[in-house]
């Protein structure tokens, strides 16, 4: 590809975050990325209100690793950037006691992949309520009654404080529903962009 192609809209994506309560009850819970650069470095903490800007943690924590560096995030060949899937599946965006699933809008530099994208800027649009089967005792290895009793109220308060909609656990699993959601918010879908420019079948 010679020239980059431009889009006016942000792209709809699904992903999960670590969701953890803080020791002090007054402090809001933490929403953090799933992967960290190494054991000693902190997870990327997400801003709930504003767009988040991705940075390359490899360059930040180990500048000697790549002396030439790179200016753009995400950079092809590097793992940096915010990750999101183009469609919901059984496990990529559901809310459990340890993780919260939700919807993001990604823009800035956007690297399209077959099932998702990496981007430089992302804003949280909504979270999914806990999946019922993950909230009943003995059904799931993820279940923790004491933890969920603390976490669900904290999740609901976090959403209310930051005007983040809390969607039904099975929301946006249907393609038509996703298209309607995206259209109403001027968002592009991954599949539309992957097929953009391809020659239609005769």
């Amino acid at each position: 590809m010679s020239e980059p192609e431009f889009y006016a809209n942000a792209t709809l994506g699904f992903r999960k975050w670590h969701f953890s309560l803080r020791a002090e009850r007054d402090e809001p819970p933490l929403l953090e990325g799933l992967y960290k650069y190494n054991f000693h470095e902190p997870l990327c903490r997400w801003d709930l209100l504003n767009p988040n800007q991705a940075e390359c943690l490899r360059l930040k924590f180990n500048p000697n690793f790549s002396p030439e560096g790179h200016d753009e995030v995400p950079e092809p060949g590097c793992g940096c950037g915010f990750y999101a899937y183009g469609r919901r599946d059984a496990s990529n965006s559901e809310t459990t006691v340890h993780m919260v699933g939700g919807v993001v809008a990604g823009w800035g530099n956007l690297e399209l992949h077959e099932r998702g994208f990496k981007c430089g800027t992302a804003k949280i649009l909504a979270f999914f309520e806990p999946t019922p089967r993950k909230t009943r005792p003995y059904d799931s290895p993820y279940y923790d009654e004491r933890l969920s009793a603390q976490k669900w109220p904290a999740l609901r308060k976090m959403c209310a404080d930051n005007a983040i909609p809390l969607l039904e656990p099975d929301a946006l699993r249907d393609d038509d529903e996703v298209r309607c959601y995206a259209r109403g918010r001027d968002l592009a879908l991954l599949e539309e962009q992957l097929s953009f420019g391809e020659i239609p079948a005769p």
Partner: protein
Amino acid sequence: MAEIGPRKKRTMQEPLREPSREPVRSPVPKKRRRRRKVSA
């Protein structure tokens, strides 16, 4: 996400407006009101 191989890379401009958490357009088109004729 490691199983997702890069397929295409495109660069996108800033969105025309920051993505909204709520719908920005009414899904049902509003009915047009007829103008009342004003007699002279």
